[in-house]
């Protein structure tokens, strides 16, 4: 496929560091869009603030780079006004689950027809490596110089508990899976989340002696466990492993379908 067709070529090369996985995720997104044959005019990509949230600047869609954590809120308004737009939200672990955590769980609860792709690198990359809600206990960050005391979120489980219609997790190494999950998420008429584990060698890898991008992706290759296999493993065996797979895939009326019922009822009562 021709990635360049979807890129704003004059904005390249992108700002991401060497070995950063964000570009791998963007490629997956573009491959799926290409496969589905979506028109560029019919796509809106919305983001918050962070390295991951710089994605929209590089793609030739309707693109909206909002405030930190608020992409889902902006996208909710846009979707309501322009329901035929395919809205893709790209977000970081900090953007989506720290400052934007409230919007994330409420969009899942409402089942708004949006897809959120979360680039989870366990860290605030853009601002220089401060701890994020997914930084594991004990790992180092610029604001956790002695090791992080806070327990991390499991983003996929969080989305599942909040009521999302589709939730899956992959890694940048597992491009085949990533493509498949993103496609399923795009086709879901409800709130869909794909969490993709991605290396941040600059702000996380180095500080935690996990090496460069290659080393960190190699770790993903060796330490990922499919969700089915994970179910047969003990807590101990799962220590340090990345559980990948589809966590939720269910049909339920989405927000706009339910609002349509509100309109029908209101008209009936008020006629």
């Amino acid at each position: 496929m021709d990635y360049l067709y979807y890129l704003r070529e004059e904005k390249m090369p992108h700002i991401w560091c060497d070995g950063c996985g964000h570009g791998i995720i963007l490629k997956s997104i573009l491959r799926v869009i290409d496969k589905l044959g979506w028109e560029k005019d019919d796509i809106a990509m919305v983001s918050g603030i962070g390295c991951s949230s710089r994605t929209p600047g590089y793609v030739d869609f309707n693109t909206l780079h909002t405030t930190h954590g608020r992409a889902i809120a902006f996208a909710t308004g846009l979707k309501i006004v322009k329901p035929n737009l395919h809205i893709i939200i790209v977000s970081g672990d900090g953007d989506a689950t720290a400052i934007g955590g409230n919007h994330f769980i409420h969009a899942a609860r409402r089942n708004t027809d949006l897809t959120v792709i979360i680039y989870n690198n366990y860290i605030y990359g853009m601002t220089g490596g401060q701890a994020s809600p997914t930084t594991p206990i004990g790992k180092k960050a610029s604001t956790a110089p002695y090791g992080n005391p806070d327990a991390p979120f499991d983003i996929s489980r969080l989305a599942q508990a909040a009521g999302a219609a589709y939730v899956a997790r992959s890694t940048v190494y597992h491009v085949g899976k990533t493509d498949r999950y993103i496609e399923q998420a795009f086709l879901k008429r409800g709130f869909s989340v794909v969490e993709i584990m991605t290396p941040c060698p600059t702000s996380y890898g180095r500080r935690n002696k996990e090496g460069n991008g290659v080393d960190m992706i190699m770790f993903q290759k060796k330490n990922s466990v499919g969700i089915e296999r994970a179910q047969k493993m003990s807590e101990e065996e799962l220590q340090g492993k990345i559980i990948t797979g589809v966590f939720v895939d269910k049909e339920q009326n989405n927000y706009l379908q339910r609002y349509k019922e509100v309109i029908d009822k209101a008209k009936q009562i008020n006629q």
Partner: protein
Amino acid sequence: MKKISKITINEKWCKSCEICVYFCPKSVYDMGRFYPVIARPEDCIACKLCEKLCPDFAITVTPPDIAESIKK
């Protein structure tokens, strides 16, 4: 003669992360002084993993049959 894939590396965009070098299942690349070198193109099986994993949109792999048809 064995038909081989056409591999191009856009050195303007490549950031020398070496992901292609380490993850190609056929070890087609060696790392050069600045950029990866397509050292063994004949070994390429056109799986496109390098293309998909290159975070910088720097690699294009054209499988042998398509590469051939373009040549003609």
